[in-house]
């Protein structure tokens, strides 16, 4: 068991989410940087789950820790691993090595002190966090108030029950994820996108501007969407029936589906990349979609960080996504 001494700005229980309910308006949720959570789970012998969103196995639940301030105390002995963004994690005040399995003992204190690179760290505990699943997943969706601990972020006094570890501590301790297979979690970020579904509604020069601008991440960003500050993007003129049906703003479209990673540009101002708690519809034109492998990169940006969007073809995006999946599968093979 773990006791929560402080939840920080937002620490949530996350697995790989609850796909399969998009048609009801239920967001997928799950770890924003799903690759990092899967690696953390692998290191402690947990189930890393299937591919994010298109798989059906949410894997074991860990913690997604945002920024600084989260503090936890182990009430019993456990094996843990911390991956993702470097939030200067400590164990009893001493630096806690990331990307490897570590044994913690009763009374040990884990703290996340300040974001050095990235903003979201993932803490997996051998056995996984045992909270009641909702629609097959333990992922927290704070907006819909479902999943995790009472559908909310952790707060002081919460107690986290841990499941039965799959492997002995002695077998897990010291396992490390190779540095070459870790994502580069460092600004300035390059986020790869596939143009569309509505890039054709923008002025061609604005599509160019979108791909060549150094965008700055706005502080108004969360798990639902990350917003970027930069030049205004302009739209092509619309026929009258669309002005009437979709709305008077040139960015308005008749609502269609909004995918994870979709980039809406309301009024041409501040593109918003939709995150893990994405609403399933929207009435704003979407210039591009972030590719699956780079959703985690979006989730690691810190307000003020510079981001450049780079266009790739859908087929290339698939290759990149499959290569990332192959890394996880290699980890599964090695750790047995």
């Amino acid at each position: 068991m773990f006791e929560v001494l402080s939840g920080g700005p937002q620490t949530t229980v996350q697995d790989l989410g609850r796909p399969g309910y998009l048609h009801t308006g239920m967001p997928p949720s799950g770890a924003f940087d799903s690759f990092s959570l899967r690696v953390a789970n692998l290191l402690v012998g947990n189930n890393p789950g299937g591919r994010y969103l298109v798989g059906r196995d949410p894997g074991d639940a860990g913690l997604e820790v945002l920024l600084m301030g989260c503090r936890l105390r182990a009430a019993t002995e456990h094996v843990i691993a911390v991956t993702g963004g470097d939030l200067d994690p400590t164990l009893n005040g001493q630096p806690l090595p990331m990307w490897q399995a570590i044994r913690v003992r009763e009374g040990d204190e884990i703290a996340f002190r300040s974001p050095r690179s990235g903003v979201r760290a993932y803490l997996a505990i051998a056995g996984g966090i045992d909270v009641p699943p909702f629609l097959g997943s333990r992922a927290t969706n704070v907006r819909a108030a479902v999943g995790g601990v009472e559908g909310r972020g952790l707060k002081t006094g919460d107690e986290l029950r841990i499941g039965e570890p799959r492997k002995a501590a002695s077998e897990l301790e010291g396992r490390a994820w190779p540095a070459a297979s870790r994502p580069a979690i460092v600004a300035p970020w390059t986020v790869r996108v596939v143009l569309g579904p509505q890039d054709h509604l923008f002025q061609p020069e604005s599509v160019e501007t979108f791909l060549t601008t150094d965008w700055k991440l706005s502080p108004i960003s969360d798990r639902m969407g990350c917003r970027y500050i930069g030049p205004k993007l302009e739209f092509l003129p619309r026929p009258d029936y669309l002005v009437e049906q979709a709305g008077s703003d040139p960015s308005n479209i008749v609502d269609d589906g909004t995918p994870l990673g979709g980039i809406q540009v309301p009024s041409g101002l501040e593109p918003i990349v939709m995150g893990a708690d994405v609403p399933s519809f929207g009435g704003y034109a979407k210039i591009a979609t972030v590719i699956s492998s780079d959703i985690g990169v979006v989730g690691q940006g810190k307000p003020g960080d510079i981001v450049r969007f780079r266009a790739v073809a859908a087929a290339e995006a698939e290759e990149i996504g499959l290569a990332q999946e192959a890394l996880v599968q290699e980890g599964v093979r090695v750790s047995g």
Partner: protein
Amino acid sequence: MLYDHPIYRPLGDMFVDVEFGDELHLALNFRVIGLNLSLAEYPIPGVTETVPSNRALMIAYDSSVIRQKALIDALREREEEATKLRRAPSRLVTIPFWYNDPWSDECAKAHGAPNNMEYLAEINGTTIDGVIAAHSGTEWWVTSVGFQPGCYQALPLDPAFAITAPKYPRPRQWTPERILCLAGKITSFYPVRSPGGYQLLGRTPVDLYDPLQRNEVFRDSPVLPIAGERHRYVPIDAADYHEIRCQVEDGAYCYDIAEGEYSLDDYLARLEAVHVEAG
């Protein structure tokens, strides 16, 4: 515009959009529902889920099973089938509804707006009873479910339905849960307390979203509405409202759901008749 052939648009490497047109029209939504039914009946391996919207079907797929290019080829073979769908299974859900309820009135006042039903009556040249008669006098076609869990959009199936509603100039910061609302000719629903800009019609005592899944109808999903079903809203008074609400909270309420089907041709024929009448 309703396209002759759908346009296939990539949404990154996890989704594809099949877009049947760019406007709001039942005939267009019928094609969306048609393709969705086809994929439910004869699944394409690798397709993991589908999301019908007003005018497009968003399809999630696993690229380790099928590549986007092959998926689009497979979808093209379904095009004609979706376009030719004339009748669709469509259940009719009857929903008790307190038009012009006190919570809607309070919410409008709190945001500096007039009573929305009075406002709708005035700008549409009728009375509150006239708005209620029109809104409860037609069946509504649920084109899409989403934005947030349990939220949906519905179009009137009576082509003569003439009430229209502008959106609020400045969106409200909150709307009570279970409020039904109107913008343009679209009826929508606030399953939970949320911001919004549609005109408030009233409140239903019935849950259409229940994360606690208390009633049998929520056994498989916490969301009741599904795209392609029909709704009828039945006016009730304060006493009915409170009685039904108690039943809902006990999990004892019996939802009025009738299986059925709907014909696009019937709708198009009625639409034509209304146009001829209007000359």
